[in-house]
């Protein structure tokens, strides 16, 4: 058995200077992306300079054999880059910003001194693509597309330069045509990007974007709330409670970027104990988990859920050590030494989340619809036997009476009741962030319900929780962030300080904790839904009457007449197909040989092969017949050759090709 060769075929030496310039340009684009979006400067800039020198050295010495000393040196440098990567990732010795990208950049810088073959150049291109991908994790705006376009142009440039060099042609091309083609390709790509739905892939786990640092937990559990209320002076703005008497100032600065498969509420802490206008958590137990929490350590998937989706969070400002994410969580990964899961299912990190830090979460998308929830029976027993979920505290009799009154006609099922109360609050109270202090001695809920009749999210959520509890329905306060500025094209959300939010979680027998939002301007049932992945639909929504569904709606309004435009479209399509087929048939018929022609010429070729001498191109059939042959022909064959020659002459010069039967007869005589 022949031995199997496992080696790749040899790659030719890349002699195209222009091609190498494009490879270097592609790397420069990737480095620029890291500098701009990763805010990482030192390593990329040094590596860029080294790579420029490396390319010059590689081009000059491209024809020379690789020396063992240089190979050893380069291998050593690669290992040094790897050591840097480990040191930076684990110990954050060099700042810990994008260690993977820095490693890849150093790898390109080192190997740029050994770019001899075309395959080497391709390797460099693909590493620069990987660098670009890492930068893309941090890219949250459309200008990043310009860098992508530049990289694609560099790739095309490398292909073209390399190809022309292989052809031994100068690297020049028809300027207008190439510019048109390039512009067309870029436009086509953008159109495809906007028109083609992007596949919503089933995630297998959280995306790993960085390695953990090893700062450990200090002390016991705290409840660092999100910066809704700034009381304690914690640098992160965290407190361990939510106090309705005070409200922190909320600016426009982004606190985090979220790359997400679906827009959702990013839930942080939940509170179950309300006392004197202050929310706290009644349970302080926790479970310590590894940075990667697989599904087996988490509650089972919600029944009839709509799948899962990934979120990658990039922290922009110091945040409390709480994992904000869409709930319920399927799995998660955070770049920390360990995680703690509290009694309410929220995850905490050992230290505050610092700018630049990322974490990734995979969440379920529960099937929460009005129809589904309406089937759930009333719940009177709190989950986990936690009576705090039903504790109405010092809720006034006036407030309880209000709850009874609002829900009096909506008590057929729990969902209807909850929605009645939510809609009542949304419709009869005003949302404002300019709220004064609660007067001393006045209950914040009563003050909200009966005095000012306006408030911010805490007021609305707290009131609904307490009113629901007064009706015997388990509920709690959830805090975190609303979706933020969601971009359906880029599948990302920019979450700002002002998106800090509080809402209600209501316990349903078959669906667990369901988010409900009584704040005006928010959906009453805060259920997460997959976005319409037709990016164009996202844009079209900005223009009235141009949604994707509009044409169908127009067709539907025509009733039976809707068949007419569809019929016209089908008829047009059939006509075009018929015209195309007819043109094709005509062209094929025109190109088809006359009957007898191809048969005769094939026979003539056969005879020439048999005689041992092919007719020379400038030789006419008659000259061939009278010409020299390797061996004398028997008289019968000479006569046959004469007849064939005459037939070929008549066909070629007079257009009179013989009937196929005549050719068959000649063929029979030959055999």
């Amino acid at each position, binding site marked *: 058995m022949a031995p199997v060769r496992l080696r790749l075929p040899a790659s030719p030496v890349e002699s195209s200077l222009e091609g190498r310039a494009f490879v270097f340009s592609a790397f420069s684009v990737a480095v620029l992306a890291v500098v701009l979006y990763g805010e990482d400067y030192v390593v990329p800039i040094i590596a860029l300079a080294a790579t420029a020198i490396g390319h010059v050295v590689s081009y000059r010495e491209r024809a020379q054999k690789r020396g063992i000393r240089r190979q050893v040196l380069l291998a050593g440098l690669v290992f040094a880059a790897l050591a840097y990567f480990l040191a930076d990732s684990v110990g954050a010795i060099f700042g810990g910003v994008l260690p993977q990208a820095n490693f890849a950049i150093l790898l390109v810088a080192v190997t740029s001194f050994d770019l001899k073959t075309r395959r080497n150049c391709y390797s460099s291109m693909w590493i620069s*693509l990987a660098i*670009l*991908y890492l930068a*893309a*994790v941090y*890219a949250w705006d459309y200008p*990043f*597309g310009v860098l*992508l*376009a530049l*990289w*694609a142009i560099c*790739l*095309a440039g490398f*292909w*073209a330069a*390399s*190809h*022309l060099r*292989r*052809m*031994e*042609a*100068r*690297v*020049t*091309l*028809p300027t*207008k*045509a*190439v510019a048109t*083609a*390039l512009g*067309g*390709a*870029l436009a*086509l*790509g*953008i159109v*495809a*990007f906007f028109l*083609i739905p*992007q596949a919503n892939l089933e995630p297998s786990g959280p995306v790993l974007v960085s390695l953990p640092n090893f700062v450990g937990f200090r002390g016991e559990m705290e409840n660092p709330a999100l910066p809704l209320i700034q009381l304690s002076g914690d640098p992160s703005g965290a407190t361990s409670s939510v106090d309705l008497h005070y409200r922190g100032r909320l600016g426009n600065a982004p606190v985090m970027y979220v*790359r997400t498969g679906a827009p959702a509420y990013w839930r942080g802490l939940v509170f179950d104990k309300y006392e004197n206008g202050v929310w706290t958590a009644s349970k302080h137990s926790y479970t310590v988990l590894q940075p990667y929490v697989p599904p087996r350590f988490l509650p089972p998937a919600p029944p009839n859920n709509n799948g899962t989706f990934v979120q990658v969070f990039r922290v922009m400002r110091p945040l409390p050590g709480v994992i904000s994410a869409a709930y319920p969580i399927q799995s998660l990964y955070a770049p920390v030494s360990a995680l703690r899961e509290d009694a309410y299912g929220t995850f905490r990190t050992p230290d505050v989340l610092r700018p630049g830090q990322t974490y990734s979460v995979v969440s379920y998308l529960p099937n929460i619809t009005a129809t589904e929830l309406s089937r759930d029976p009333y719940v009177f027993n709190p989950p986990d036997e936690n009576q705090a979920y039903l504790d109405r505290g010092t809720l006034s009799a006036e407030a309880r009476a209000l709850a009874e009154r609002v829900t009096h006609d909506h008590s057929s099922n729990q969902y209807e009741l909850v929605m009645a109360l939510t809609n009542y609050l949304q419709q009869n109270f005003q949302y404002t962030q300019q709220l004064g202090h609660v007067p001393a001695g006045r209950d914040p809920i009563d003050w909200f319900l009966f005095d000012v009749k306006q408030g911010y999210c805490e007021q609305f959520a707290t009131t609904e929780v307490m009113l629901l509890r007064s009706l015997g329905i388990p509920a709690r306060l959830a805090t975190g962030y609303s979706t933020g500025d969601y971009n359906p*094209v*880029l*599948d*990302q959300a920019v979450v700002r300080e002002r998106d800090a939010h509080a809402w209600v979680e209501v316990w349903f027998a078959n669906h667990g904790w369901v988010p409900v939002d009584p704040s005006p301007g928010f959906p009453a049932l805060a259920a997460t839904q997959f976005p319409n992945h037709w990016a164009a639909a996202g844009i079209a929504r900005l223009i009235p009457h141009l949604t994707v569904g509009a044409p169908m709606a127009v067709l539907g309004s025509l009733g039976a007449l809707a068949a007419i435009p569809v019929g016209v479209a089908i008829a047009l399509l059939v006509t075009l197909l018929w015209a195309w087929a007819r043109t094709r048939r005509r062209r094929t018929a025109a190109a088809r040989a006359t009957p007898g022609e191809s048969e005769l010429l094939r026979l003539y070729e056969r005879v020439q092969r048999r005689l041992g*001498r092919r007719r020379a*191109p*400038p030789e006419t059939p008659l000259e061939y017949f009278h*010409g*020299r*042959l*390797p*061996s*004398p*022909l028997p008289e019968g064959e000479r006569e046959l050759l004469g007849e064939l020659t005459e037939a070929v002459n008549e066909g070629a010069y007079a257009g009179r090709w013989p009937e196929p039967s005549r050719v068959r007869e000649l063929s029979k005589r030959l055999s």
Partner: protein
Amino acid sequence: MAWLYLLAYWIVALIAVAFVYALWNRGLQGGLRVQSTESGPGSPMEDLPERVLAGGPSVPVFEGDRMQVELRIDSGHGTRGPARISGAIAATPLAAAAGVIPKQGWAEVRAMGPLRRGPVGAKDWVLESGDPLGLFRHRGPSFDSELALVLPRFKSLAERTQTRELEASLAAPRAGSGTEMFGVREYRPGDPLRRIHWRSSARHGELIVREFEPPGVQILGIFCDPSPATPEVADQIARVAASEAWDCLRGGGRVVLWAPGAEASRPDEARSLWALLEWLARYPYHPDVVRPLPPRVGDAIAVMSTPSIDIDDALQGIRQRGGSVRAWVVGETELDSDMPTHHAGLEWPL
């Protein structure tokens, strides 16, 4: 991730556009042409009179010359590119490519040579066009052709002492005073003024005289060895035969070339130096199935490397008809014949 989709779409779009570009870039035409020649040392070109050159091919090529071949790509629809033309000329692979093919076409000149006698074949020439990225390629049908015919060198042998000694034995045909006019030639001192053809003289800018069939002129037959041992011997036989033919033609004679088993040169081209050179350029010939008879000539010269019965028989016949014969032998072979014989090695000039 959305960005990866965008990049993927751009790469796919590049491939799609490259396909369209490759379709647009079709319809080019390639061609080959001998642009010029550069005479090698000892080329007969310098000795040939203008009048003779005027009757020959536009770019005559002799062995030892260098040749400039133009590889051309034409576009009938405006600027196109890239394209590549490649193939082999005389078994030498050649290729040329351009990124841009202007509307007026693109050409590149390649030098070849020194050339050997015989046909210069262009084989497997093919034109390729495609997109700039090299993803899609269109290959036109390949074509073969005879690019040039390299003629044998020749040099007048009339000055050679040995030849002069033999002059007496062979009636050299000369322009005589017969009545049948068979051509014109340049004026030579001693020609009667009444033979000057004034119209032709005015056209050519030099004196031209009418030539008449000399009385009793015979056609000179030059019989070549049917199977020379080596290509070098064949080249030398062709050179000697061409030289003898040239001397005869210069003297106003006619020449018919023949090799046993091959068709003789055409009698109506017996006064054409170029037709005779072309016959000799293709020499030796594969023996024909129907062995043609030797041409009927008055006198004959045999140019051989080994004895040939067919040539001996032909010469015998000429002798019997009263014609004169002599022979050239390339190599050391001795002929068993009483006819005057010259010997030549493989060096040229003799």
